[in-house]
């Protein structure tokens, strides 16, 4: 059998790739992709905890469903916001949208 730590380490690698992507990319769409990677890492963790540590309650499994739901809502909203920004400013790079920056 595979020990749970294997899954946790995999999810840690995926999460830090997501962190790198969010901080290093300029385009809002590429940042969104990196956020998706981080959400996947969180889902893996939740499910691993549910099936290894608490198989009687399996709250982690339920929570993974909500993670997927919220991620879907987030992608839809972000697409709309990026389109709106692109229409107004002709760019989707987050560092060029700095009107409110002090």
């Amino acid at each position, binding site marked *: *059998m595979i020990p749970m730590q294997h899954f946790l380490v995999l999810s840690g690698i995926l*999460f830090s790739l997501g962190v790198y992507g969010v901080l290093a990319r300029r385009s809002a769409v590429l940042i969104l992709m990196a956020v998706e990677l981080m959400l996947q890492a969180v889902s893996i963790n939740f499910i691993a905890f549910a099936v290894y540590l608490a198989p009687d309650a399996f709250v982690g499994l339920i929570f993974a469903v909500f993670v997927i739901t919220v991620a879907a*809502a987030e992608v839809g*909203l972000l697409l709309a916001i990026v389109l709106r920004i692109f229409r107004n400013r002709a760019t989707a790079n987050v560092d060029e949208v700095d009107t409110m920056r002090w």
Partner: protein
Amino acid sequence: MSVEEGVFYAIAALTVMGGMGVVFARNVVYSALFLILALLAVAGIFLLLSAEFLALVQVLVYGGAVTILVIFALMLTRVQDTPTALDSPQKPFAFLAAAGVLAISILAAVGTTWPGQTEKINAIPLRDFGDALFRTWALPFEVASLVLVVALVGAIVLAREEDGE
């Protein structure tokens, strides 16, 4: 090494490869394709964790809907004539932060003494899962569907072309 472990390492390698492709690719479309690879590989990880239902949902929602939305967003926000840098100048700091997160999460995963056993996967029957989702967690489930409706209606309102624009 058992067959199960071999499958795990193969799928984990695919996942990490996809993730690295997403954040390091020099072409946004390649990034999106690597994202599909990573998401499908994560569905495989869910299968290995004996969460078949979530693996199917993952393929349907992420493999289908989310990646199509992302590719649409890429297509609609393309600036053809002036290719700009994909990465921002804070790349070294991003690398440091990611390395820090990686070190902390691996140390935490390996170093913690977990309450309960960490050797064996307990498959949760689909019937129990559905029971819990629609009895114990029925209210949060409905709230989640409301969140989805509100977010998508908001997305339509935001993205719509208005008169006089």
